[in-house]
């Protein structure tokens, strides 16, 4: 077990290193002079030279890279064009996105697992077709359109929920949830569609397995058979799917926050691109890559704990 985790950790570290090189190089490739971005309106050559000197923009790229990584490891991601520390900005924005993503995962899992189980148990009945069709639609509906439609119906027409904005949970929990409900549903919709399809096929497989027949033969109630035996064995799928869907969740958060005017991490990404804010952008993208790798690592480990067979055969890519 220890060796398995160490090997996964080593692979993750390599990925993080290469990702940081890629982020650094990619941000440098964006057209536009970073000194001009820092200088804002001031085009005085002397000011620009001072800025270049201060941020070491004339140093060779490898030197700049090593300096950036050295500071990043200590939690210092530099300052953005407004002179604010990047790490601090990111730390203040992340909780919003985590709340959004957490609620989305909650909604997506409850809906996805529920619909998947019902569809599998009632295979071939109208409820199965209904769930399967809705899931298929959910896969093809882009986040931002679903968001616009929900605003149209629930905010503009019915006036039940606010169309945009954010209220911190500590200030007013009810308002916070009211503001977060629509974005979380929008973000969770795609996840629930994917989960529903996976759950349905996993459940169908479990329901046809020998241990389920044995459980039925023992005279256990249908509820126990489905809930305890079939469902538990299908849940392994859920862990993997959530790990795999994380990327979609991150990109979805960018778009969802944009539509609902939530100043979270996704919004920060778009803003940093729009403002050509080098330090901010490379900090943001680095955090995305590291977060993605870390969560996938956790999923791998969790998965190997649930299913020991992975440890033996897995590890190779």
């Amino acid at each position: 077990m220890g060796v398995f985790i160490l090997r996964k950790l080593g692979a993750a570290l390599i990925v993080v290193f290469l990702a940081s090189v890629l982020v650094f190089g990619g941000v440098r490739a964006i057209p536009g002079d970073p000194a001009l971005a820092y200088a804002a309106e001031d085009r005085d050559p002397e000011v620009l030279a001072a800025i270049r000197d201060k941020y070491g923009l004339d140093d060779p790229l490898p030197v700049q890279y090593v300096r950036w990584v050295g500071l990043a490891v200590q939690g210092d991601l530099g300052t953005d064009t407004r002179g604010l520390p990047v790490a601090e900005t990111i730390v203040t924005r992340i909780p919003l996105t985590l709340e959004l993503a957490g609620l989305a995962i909650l909604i997506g899992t409850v809906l996805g697992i529920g619909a998947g189980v019902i569809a599998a148990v009632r295979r071939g009945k109208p409820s199965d077709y209904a769930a399967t069709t809705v899931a298929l639609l959910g896969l093809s509906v882009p986040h931002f359109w679903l968001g616009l439609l929900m605003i149209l119906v629930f905010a503009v027409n019915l006036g039940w929920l606010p169309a945009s904005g954010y209220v911190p949970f500590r200030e007013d929990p009810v308002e916070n949830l009211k503001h977060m409900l629509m974005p979380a549903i929008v973000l969770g919709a795609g996840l629930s569609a994917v989960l529903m399809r996976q759950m349905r096929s996993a459940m169908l497989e479990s329901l046809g397995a020998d241990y389920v027949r044995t459980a039925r033969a023992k005279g256990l109630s249908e509820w126990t058979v489905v809930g305890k035996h079939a469902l538990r064995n299908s849940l392994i799928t859920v862990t993997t799917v959530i790990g795999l869907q994380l990327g979609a969740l991150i990109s979805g958060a960018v778009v969802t926050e944009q539509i609902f005017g939530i100043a979270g991490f996704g919004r920060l990404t778009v803003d940093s691109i729009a403002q050509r804010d080098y330090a901010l952008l490379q900090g943001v993208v680095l955090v995305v890559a590291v977060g993605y790798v870390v969560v996938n690592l956790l999923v791998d480990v969790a998965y190997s704990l649930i299913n020991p067979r992975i440890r033996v055969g897995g590890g190779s890519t």
Partner: protein
Amino acid sequence: MSYVEATPLSARAHRRRILRRRFLRRPAAVASLVVVVGSILGAALAPSIAPYSPDATDFNALLAGPSREHLMGTDDLGRDTFSRVIWGARASIQAGFFATVLAMVIAVPIGLVAGYYRGWLDTVIARITDVLLAFPFLILAVGLAAIFGPSLLNATLALGIAAVPPLVRIARGEALALREEDYVRAAVANGANDAVIVGRHILPNMASTLLVQATLTIPAAIIGEAVLSFLGLGVQPPTPSWGVMLNAAQPYLNEAPSLAVYPGLAIVVVALAFNLLGDGLRDVFDPKTQR
């Protein structure tokens, strides 16, 4: 004595006939193919189908609801939404197809080389793919589009490159599996060189997998184009694109909700059709995976 000469069917023609029959037995796949062909034709023939020019303004009907003159209503400049949706198909279909072709052209040779030759090159390629897969598809596309600058061509390039990593992984996996097949060993024993083995034995045998993946990459790229254009990183106004139209609809949700409905509906219909077609093709090529 006479006999009827049976037309000798080559193995390939026979297989094609079986595949066609399997495909035609799936109503969802056939219907989605019709929608896909229809949307391609619609995009190609936009100038003759669309009732108005996408830029024609009608100041007597600003933000009008659906009517006989304007089937889907008009926008804030009095432009006909129906015509703009038809013209918008061009950006979507173009981005969807060319991004997918670009991704295939880059990914397949890389995956083939890695999977067929193995060795250190494979290790390097597999690691780089892992790194790129650490960036979600749309995040990668957004980043690349920011580097390239906003335009349809650049958005297509960004989406195409962003779609490369998963395709490399699939092509590599297929090549890894196929190189162990008996017919490949037989070819090696016969003294065939690598080009013949890869070109004649491996590539044709992974073609169906690649075709299915391509059909599923197209809708991802179509939605990607809409997202990039929605964020201002793709097609620029006044050129019609479904993403641009949805972005422009945001301030008018109160007065003209139809502005936000139809372009999105177009995205869903086209993306759904491609997804269903991909699912159908997968079932046709590999009946084992049928649900």
